[in-house]
Every structure is written in C-alpha cells, then in structure tokens.
C-alpha cells in the first residue's frame, strides 16, 4: 500500500470507527431500559440548558475558582519550599521521611481532616487541593535543584552570578522541565480533589451538581455533568501542554537537535 493510500485509510478508520461508536452509544442510550442511561439528545439538551449558561455562574465558576486558587497556591508553595530544600542537604535529610509519607497518603484520606480543621465550603476545597498538589511540585523542584549540572554551577559561580539574578535567569529556567512535569501530575490530582471535595463538602460546584443529580435521579443531568468534567479535563490538559511547550521551547528542541 502506498503511503498516500495508507494515510487515507487511517483517516477513514479514525472518522468511520468513531462515527460507528457514537452511533452505537446513541442508539443504546435511546433503546436501553436501564435507569442508568439517558438518551444522548436529552443529555445534550440538559448540557446546553444548564452549563450554557444558566448554571455556569452558580456551579462551573466556583469550581474553576477553587481549582485555580488551589493549584496556584500549590505551585507557589511547592516551588518555594522545593528551592529551599534543594539548597540544604540537612533540611532535605530532615524532611525526607515526612514528605515521603505525606506524598504517599491517599489525598482523599485527608478530606475528612480538612473538614474537621476548616469546615465545609470553598476554603476547605482550596486547602485540600493546595496541600495535596504541592508535593509533586515540591519534590520535582528539589530534585531539579539537586541535579543541576555541575558545569552549569561552575559557570555561574565563576562569573559571579548570584542572588535574584541567579534564581531568575539560571536556576528557574534550568529546573523548569522537571517542575513542569510535577505540575502536570498535580493538575490531574487537583481535578480529582476538586470533584470529590465538592461532592461531600460543598453546596455548589460541578461535583456537587453531579452528586445531587444522581441523588434525585436526574440522570440526564448527571451525564451532562460527567461530560462537562471530561471536557474540562481535556481543556485543562491541552492548555497546560501548550504552556509547557512554549516555556520549554529551548529544551525540547535541544533534545531534538
């Protein structure tokens, strides 16, 4: 098969099989008697009615806010503390067991704790997201600093580059590939914690919406919410990927060179 034919076959497969799957799911949703499933058109309708834009402000926005706030705090704290730990071997050794433990604890186990300490509502969501998501970032930052190339270090020292200059122009760019990898992990965690913290600890938000929908057997609503989460997850990952690619222009290309 020539290369050109092959490309057409692949495109055809992609579109064709996907269309088949969609059709299959659609038909099943219409015919099925189960109470778990709602017809696809209904889901689409509910999706449009609620999230665009009736309940956008009351549910989607708070979720986005919690997510963004928690994640940003996690980044700042993670990078800040990570830099500190990276500089001091003593501090690293002191904190390794604690950090390993906190990082291995399933995030959700801390949710009741957060409720005890902070009560339900937005601050609790932001806290748990920030707290759990800072560990991958922190660990990656520390690793990045520790693994800084010795020749790079020697160069910086020989030219007397210190302080803020060194941090801003050398250290942060040098460790950015690793830090961004850590942030990538944290983003998925953040989404997970957002949804769960809203399900059990908030009176609004997408997670709460889905949960309520299920409780009241508004199945189409429930599926609409699930679809929305999928869309959000996709958008967040894509956006992050784009930012990462832009920031690491020099790095990826360097590897390709």
């Amino acid at each position, binding site marked *: 098969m020539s290369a050109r034919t092959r490309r057409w076959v692949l495109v055809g497969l992609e579109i064709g099989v996907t269309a088949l799957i969609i059709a299959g799911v659609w038909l099943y949703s219409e015919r099925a008697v189960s109470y778990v499933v709602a017809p696809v058109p209904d889901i689409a309708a509910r999706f449009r009615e609620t999230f665009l834009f009736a309940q956008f402000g009351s549910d989607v926005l708070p979720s986005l806010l919690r997510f963004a706030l928690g994640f940003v705090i996690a980044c700042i704290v993670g990078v800040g503390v990570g830099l500190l730990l990276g500089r001091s071997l003593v501090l690293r050794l002191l904190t390794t067991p604690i950090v390993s433990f906190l990082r291995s604890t399933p995030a959700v186990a801390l949710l009741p704790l957060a409720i005890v300490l902070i009560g339900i509502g937005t601050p609790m969501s932001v806290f748990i997201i920030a707290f759990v998501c800072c560990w991958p970032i922190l660990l990656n930052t520390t690793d990045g600093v520790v693994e800084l*190339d010795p*020749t*790079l270090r*020697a*160069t910086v*020292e*020989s*030219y*007397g*580059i210190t302080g803020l*200059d060194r941090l801003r*122009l*050398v250290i942060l*760019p*040098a460790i*950015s590939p690793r830090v961004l990898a850590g942030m990538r992990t944290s983003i998925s965690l953040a989404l997970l914690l957002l949804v769960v913290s809203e399900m059990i600890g908030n009176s609004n938000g997408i997670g709460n919406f889905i949960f309520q929908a299920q409780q009241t057997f508004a199945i189409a609503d429930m599926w609409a919410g699930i679809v929305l989460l999928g869309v959000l997850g996709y958008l967040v990952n894509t956006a992050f990927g784009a930012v990462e690619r832009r920031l690491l222009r*020099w*790095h990826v*290309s*360097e590897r390709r*060179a």
Partner: protein
Amino acid sequence: MLEVQGLSKTYGSGATATRAIDHIEFDVSESEFVSVVGPSGCGKTTLLKCMAGLLEPTSGRTMLLGHQVTRSPPEMAVVFQDYSRSLFPWLTVRRNVALPLRRKPEIADRERLVAETLAAVGLAGFEEHYPWQLSGGMQQRVAIARALAYQPKVLLMDEPFASVDAQTRGELEDLVLSVRRRFGVTCVLVTHDIDEAVYMSDRVVVLTSPPSRVLETVAIDLPRPRNQVTTREHPSFGHLRGHVYQLIKGRAGRSPAPGPEEEFATT
C-alpha cells in the same frame, strides 16, 4: 600578574584521601600565555579550579595582582571544556554573552560590547540564535566571546578544545591567539594536547602524575604571530614538542639532538 604559591589539594580524608596536587608553584606575567600539561589524571583541572576560586585548596594560595584569590574574582574568566553544559540553553547567544556583565555595572554600552565580542569570534549575525542551533565549534566560540566580554585580566581555559573536531580545534586555537593579541589578555590553558600547548604558549608548565608538582617549565621561544603551518614546521617546534612529551612520559633529559635552552622550574 598571577602567582600560584604552594597550591595543594587533597580530596577526602583519612584512609581514602587522595592528594591531587601537591605544592604547585609558578608565575604568570601580564599578557603571557602559559599552558599546563601533564599525564592523564594529573590534577590539571583541579589546579585550574583552585586558581579560579571555584575550589578551595587544602593549602597554598593564588595571588592575583597582589591579592589572594578566594572566590571567583571579577578579573578572571573561565572557559570550560563542555560548552553544551556551560552555555545556558534557554538564552539566545546574545543574552548568554551579556548575562555575566550584570556583575560589572561599570561597563557602559553593553550592547555594543556584546556585538563586538561576537564579531571578534566570528559570530556576527548569530546573536538571536539559541546554542542548540549552533555547531560545537560555534558554541565554544560563544563561550569564548562571553569570557571576553567579561573583560577579564586573566583567561583560564580548561581543555576548551577537547570536545571539538581537529579542524575546528585549529581554528579555535588561532581565534584565542588573535583575541589575546588584540586585547592583551593573560591566558592560562590546561590541555592534554602537547602540540596545542607548544603551539599556543610562551611557556609550558609540565606537571607530574599525582600528587602532582611542577616537573619543569619549558620556555617556548617560537616566533609570533603563530601560524598553523609555518610554526609547526619550525625546527624548534619538533624539539620542544618532543621534550615536553618526554617529560610527561618520564624520560626527561635524554633528548637525542641539541635543542633550545630550557628553563628549569623555579621552586
């Protein structure tokens, strides 16, 4: 200009202690070009790092213009062997060269300085490139430009041409010689390449195996400006080269033909 006084460096302690260099002494005069050679593993890089203030010697000291070197002095610039890890890949060529100048606010018109240095190393027009877009030789030129823009009195180079191919090496050797001629920088070159050491230097300091001391300092009175073809064909070149080689191989003092006068180590 530069005085190395009794420099010693021991790594580790107790049973696993390794004496890399032991009581090294030599001087470098202003605008002089001195190479440091020796058998493999003889602590040449250790010596250079101590001289540059990057490594703390176990004893002894380096004096620069009458003052002791403790941290990296602004009068010294270092060119490392591994340019790919010494240049900052996230900065353009221009920014790489300009970055160390932040330490020297007294230098006016940095933009022009950067442009002229890059032109001096033959990289005019590549200012906005990133290091990974350049060949190895070009990257090392950027490192040299960066060192030059820093306006040091002393240029220290740690096997700077070991990672490039032979032809590029010749070009870079001549480049260093020409910028030295032009800006009067004092140069100390650490290398394992005897030909290179003889070709470029006024004097060659030969080290022993570890614990390394100065075995002998060989004066190179080949005519300047040096030329890759004519200098290497000069009758003295072979003698000098052979003498250094024999020193390193441990059979000093048995040169088969009369050679130029050799200066003995001043310890």
